[in-house]
Each structure stands twice: as structure tokens, then as C-alpha cells.
């Protein structure tokens, strides 16, 4: 075999529902009205909360946060496809998945207002990991979680997310390689929203697609239209089935767009054209999902109005709860350095309380 092709690969792009709301009947998943509507409701709720958070932030009622608007067609179907017992090891722009998986809206608000309380789940069995701020780490965690699921012989799967920027990190590489070698039940979703703060996709990597990065690990890959919830649904279900069947991890690239600023501290006018943003808005996921539902006869303006009101109500309630004053002990950090407070920490804890006391009395 002097010169011989020994391996061939390809990347497939999947779109089921196009920008105009037209669906490819051959590929359309059989969601059924109830599930289809549920999906849209969650998308709308995530959007509503995201928009409210931006207002709160601008009013100084919330800290810096990364808006998720435009990412709903990825995060929501993924969350819905997961089962109880599955782990979610997210990045930081998957508000939708968090909500669908059962995290209270207030968690996100508390988290972005500077309180660890936003990481504490009402029930640890929800298996939603805290946001992984240091980009890439979560892929390695997911590999370990997936190993544990396999080790225990459960059919639990692990879903992890990363951005286009995050694919450049070594941890992306190491985590996917581990999961692939272990044939561990993991689904990794690259949420390619074209930007990593100011760095466009082309400056991030010279590869034509991000999906093809999975070829390095010998795992199935697919690129989907990330503004198309049906394509995401199909791809993630296939991947989860594969994971549960013991066939190892899958890499899904979901192509979408970061419609908003990177975080509320960022100013995109420094580095991108508003024309590009406008073009991206034309492809955004909620409108097309709504059109699809309407074409099916499952949706109309009245229902939309009702949904908007419901979402607003839910968000209002969450914000009210979030803003209800609570006494939060400031010495929590001392209690959670270790399982038992070490003598030296205890001394410092006492010192801290004395300082609090003194400064409180004077202030």
C-alpha cells in the first residue's frame, strides 16, 4: 500500500426547520403538540428572563451577566431531551437548559448578583453543576461523571456545553479524548455563536467546522443549525441514545449567533458590525419556532399573548422573590473551606466575626 486512503470522514449539517418556519417533513421529529408547545414555552420563558435580567443589570439591580438571547434553540431542546438522573455540566450561556432541568429562576438571579446561594439546588438530584467560569474545565468533569455512570452500570448520560472559543482550550481536547477512550456516555455540545468576546470564529481556529474537531477523538460528529430546535432535538436525541447504548460520546456543533453583548460589561460595537447582528436577528430561533407551531395549527396570537403574560408573571415572581431582603450570614465562607473547620480557620473565623462586629457598630 504505497499511497492509500486509510480513513475518510465527513461532517453533516442538519437543518429541519428553516428560517422561514418551513419544515423538512422527512426529517421532522414526531414531537406531538404537547411537547412542541412545551418546547416553545420554555424558549419564551428563557428569553423573558434573559431580557429582564438585562434590565435589572442596567438598573443596578443585578451584577454582570452573559445574556443568552438567541441560544434558546440549543439549550431548550437539549434540556428537554435529557432524563432524570442525567448530569448537566454546562458552560455559562445555557440559561435555558438550567430552567428546563428544574433549576429555580432565582438561582440564576442570585448567582449573577454575587451569591453562592445561586448554585445550591433545591434537590441535589437535579444534577446541574454550577457554572464553570474557567472555560473548558467542565468537559473534563463531564468525562469523569460519564465514567462514573458507566462504572455503576446506570443508563445515565452526561451533557456538557462549550462555546466556539472554548474549543481552543486544552481541556476541551483532554476531556473529549478521555470520554472517547472510555466510551463514556457523554454528549458534548459546541455552542458556536461565532464570537468569543471580540474574537470571531475565524481567528479562533482555522478549521472549516467545529464539528470536525471531534474527528480527532474518533467519535461521531454532526453540525446542526443551532437556531433550529428540531435539528437540535434530533441530533441530541440520537447522541443520547448512542451514549446510553454504550457507544460513547458524540460531538454536536450547534451553529447560532450571540445576538447580544458578551456580558453586560462588553461593548460589541468595538468589534462587529450592526449589519451582521441584524442579519443574525433574522435567523433567530423563537420566530421560526412560532411559525412552525402556527403552521401546524398549534399556535396563534392569542396563545402567544397568554404565554407572554405567563412568562412575565413567572419572571416577576422570581424577581420579587430574588429581591426580597434576606439576612445572609457573611461568614459562610469559613464554614465551607473544609468538611470540618480546622483550628486555624476557626481562629480566623472568630477574627472575622470580631471585625464584623466592630465595623458594624461603627458603620
Amino acid at each position, binding site marked *: 500500500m504505497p499511497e492509500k486512503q486509510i480513513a475518510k470522514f465527513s461532517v453533516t449539517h442538519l437543518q429541519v426547520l428553516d428560517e422561514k418556519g418551513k419544515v423538512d417533513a422527512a426529517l421532522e421529529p414526531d414531537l406531538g403538540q404537547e411537547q412542541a408547545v412545551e418546547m416553545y414555552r420554555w424558549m419564551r420563558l428563557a428569553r423573558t428572563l434573559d431580557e429582564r435580567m438585562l434590565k435589572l443589570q442596567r438598573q443596578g439591580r443585578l451584577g454582570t451577566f452573559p445574556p443568552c438571547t438567541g441560544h434558546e434553540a440549543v439549550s431548550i431542546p437539549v434540556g428537554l431531551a435529557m432524563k432524570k438522573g442525567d448530569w448537566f455540566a454546562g458552560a455559562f450561556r445555557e440559561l435555558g437548559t438550567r430552567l428546563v432541568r428544574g433549576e429555580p429562576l432565582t438561582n440564576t438571579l442570585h448567582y449573577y448578583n454575587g451569591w453562592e446561594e445561586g448554585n445550591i439546588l433545591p434537590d441535589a438530584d437535579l444534577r446541574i453543576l454550577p457554572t464553570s467560569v474557567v472555560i473548558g474545565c467542565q468537559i473534563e468533569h463531564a468525562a469523569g461523571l460519564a465514567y462514573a455512570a458507566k462504572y455503576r452500570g446506570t443508563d445515565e448520560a452526561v451533557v456538557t456545553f462549550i462555546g466556539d472559543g472554548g474549543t481552543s482550550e486544552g481541556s476541551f481536547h483532554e476531556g473529549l479524548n478521555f470520554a472517547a477512550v472510555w466510551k463514556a456516555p457523554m454528549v458534548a455540545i459546541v455552542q458556536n455563536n461565532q464570537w468569543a468576546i*471580540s474574537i470571531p470564529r475565524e481567528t479562533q481556529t482555522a478549521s472549516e467546522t467545529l464539528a470536525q474537531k471531534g474527528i480527532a477523538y474518533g467519535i461521531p460528529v454532526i453540525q446542526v443549525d443551532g437556531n433550529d430546535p428540531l435539528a437540535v432535538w434530533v441530533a441530541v436525541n440520537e447522541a443520547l441514545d448512542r451514549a446510553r447504548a454504550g457507544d460513547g460520546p458524540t460531538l454536536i456543533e450547534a451553529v447560532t449567533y450571540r445576538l447580544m453583548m458578551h456580558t453586560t460589561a462588553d461593548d460589541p460595537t468595538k468589534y462587529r458590525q450592526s449589519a451582521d447582528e441584524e442579519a443574525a436577528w433574522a435567523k433567530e430561533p423563537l420566530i421560526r419556532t412560532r411559525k412552525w407551531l402556527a403552521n401546524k395549527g398549534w399556535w396563534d396570537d392569542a396563545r402567544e399573548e397568554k404565554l407572554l403574560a405567563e412568562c412575565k408573571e413567572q419572571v416577576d415572581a422570581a424577581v420579587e422573590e430574588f429581591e426580597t431582603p434576606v439576612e445572609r450570614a457573611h461568614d459562610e465562607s469559613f464554614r465551607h473551606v473544609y468538611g470540618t473547620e480546622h483550628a486555624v480557620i476557626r481562629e480566623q473565623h472568630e477574627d472575622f466575626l470580631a471585625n464584623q462586629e466592630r465595623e458594624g457598630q461603627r458603620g
Partner: protein
Amino acid sequence: MAKLNMVQAINLALAQEMEKDADVLVLGQDVAVDGGVFRVTDGLLEKFGDQRVVDTPLAESGIIGSSIGMAMAGLKPVCEMQFSGFSYLMMGQFEAHATRMRSRTHGQITLPMVIRMPFGGGVRALEHHSESREVLFAHLPGAKVVIPSGPRNARALLVAAIRDPDPVVFMEPKHSYRAFREEVPDAEETLPVGKCQVVQEGTDLTVISWGAMMRPALKAAAEIEKRRGTSVEIIDVQTIAPLDAHTIAESVRKTGRCVIVQEAPRSYGASGEIVAQINDRALMHLEAPVKRLTGYDVVTPYFGREKSYLPNAERVVAGMEETLDF
């Protein structure tokens, strides 16, 4: 001569050094088109072009590793870690190569490079954006760690760091980025790497600090002078590694009392080494234990609780009183 904040002063240092020396280049995440998330590198792309002001992929080890390569080839990269909280991803390269290449080759290969990184708390930032961990770099032989405390010394120290023949970790207290302005001369100014600066002479009490903690230290010193007429000598460490232990010891031999203010967690922080150096060189002159006002040995809380955890002028004053009354 202009009144600049620290962001502007660092920008000035970069621009002037790039102007002077075509081997100097800047790289990192968002440093070019965006001008850096803190705007520290703003305008450099326009002035020097995209070959010298380089937006990199999102990979800290790649940034340091490729900077090491550039430095081996004779360039003088000034690379940026977007926040010190992400710099631990490049500790492998830093420990294995940045600090060792000179020693490994007995000087045949050297690495004239600077690693800039904003660090420290007080800006109500997300997790991993508020830590002080200078000692992780400072403990490594071959590392130089420089921390400015204000616009003027930031500029002067950065110029010196860029010209230094060895890798310098240049840690920028982000709380001080825009907190105040100082006169910064247009003309070149440098401060030596490897030296502490006595910023105020005094006879009764030595106060030692660096970075953002210089502010509460100075404030507390003024307060204690006012309250008790204490003559305070104030030292801005500026270079954490290698530490100028002589200047510190000399001061403590004179005053006999010392307070150190450190933002980082106490245990194994820089203040421990400073106390040990005082023990080695000035123990018999001590009239009271050296007092350490530091961060606590806890995981930095999210910003809701952050303020209670940062050392402040009030605690420093209390520490000074304790030391003076000992």
C-alpha cells in the same frame, strides 16, 4: 506630563516601548480589535498593526507557550492573561520553561517576555475574577513578579519589565485600574525590578504592602499618624520576587515594629516570607510581633460577601494600634 489612571499609564508604557523597539509585541485574548477587556491595549492595533498586536485563540497555555517560542527567537512578547484567575492553566509552561530556560542552557537561551495579568478583588466581579495568588509565581526560582500600586509606578515598572532580560509576571491590581490618577511624565521613566520602594520615611513603625492594598495601608498610616503622632515608614514592595529583603530588614531594624498588609489568603502568602526575612535579619530589633493583616484562608466569596473579606484601612489601623501598644 498628564494625569493618568493606571490603565492609561500601562497603555502609555506599551505604546512607547513598541515605538522604540520593533521586537516588542502584544498578544492575548481580545487585546487587539477590542483593545483588551479593560481597554489596557486600546489603540495599539491601530498604531502598530495586527502583526504586533495579536488577538489569540482562547488558550492560556498556548499564549504563554507561544510567547516563550517568540522570546527564544529574540522577540519581546508582552502577553496578557485576561484575568489572573485563568493563569493557572499556563502554570505548566511557566514552571517548566519560562522560569527555567536560562538556567537550563546556562544563559544561552533567555526569555525576555512579560506576562501581564489583572488580579485582585473589589470590583464586584464573577467567580475567579477576584483572587490574589502572586505567591504561586513568586515561589518558583527564575520567576520575577512585579506588582505596581499606582499609575506612575505601573508605567515605570512595566517599561523596566519589558526591557528586563528575563520573564516578568506583571500583576495589575484591577481595583486600582481606574480608582485614581497620578501625574505620569511623558518622558521615559523606569523603576528597578527587584527593589522595594520606601515611599515614606519614618521611625516608629514600618508598614509593608503592595498592589491595591497600598491604598488602605497609606490611609491607615495617615490615620495613625494623626491619632497618635506615630512616624510611619511605608514600603511599597513592588517586586515580590526576587524580594528585596534588605530594604525591608533595614527599615524594621530602625522602627522595631512592622505591619504587613496583604490581600491574598494568609497561609503561605507573601507576608509569611516577609516575616521570615525579618526574623532572619532583624529579629532582635523587634519590639512586637510583626502583624499581618491579610485575606482569610477561605475560598474568595462571590461579590455579595466580598467586601467583608478584603482587608481595609480600619483593620489595618487596628493592627497598627495593636503593634504599637504591644
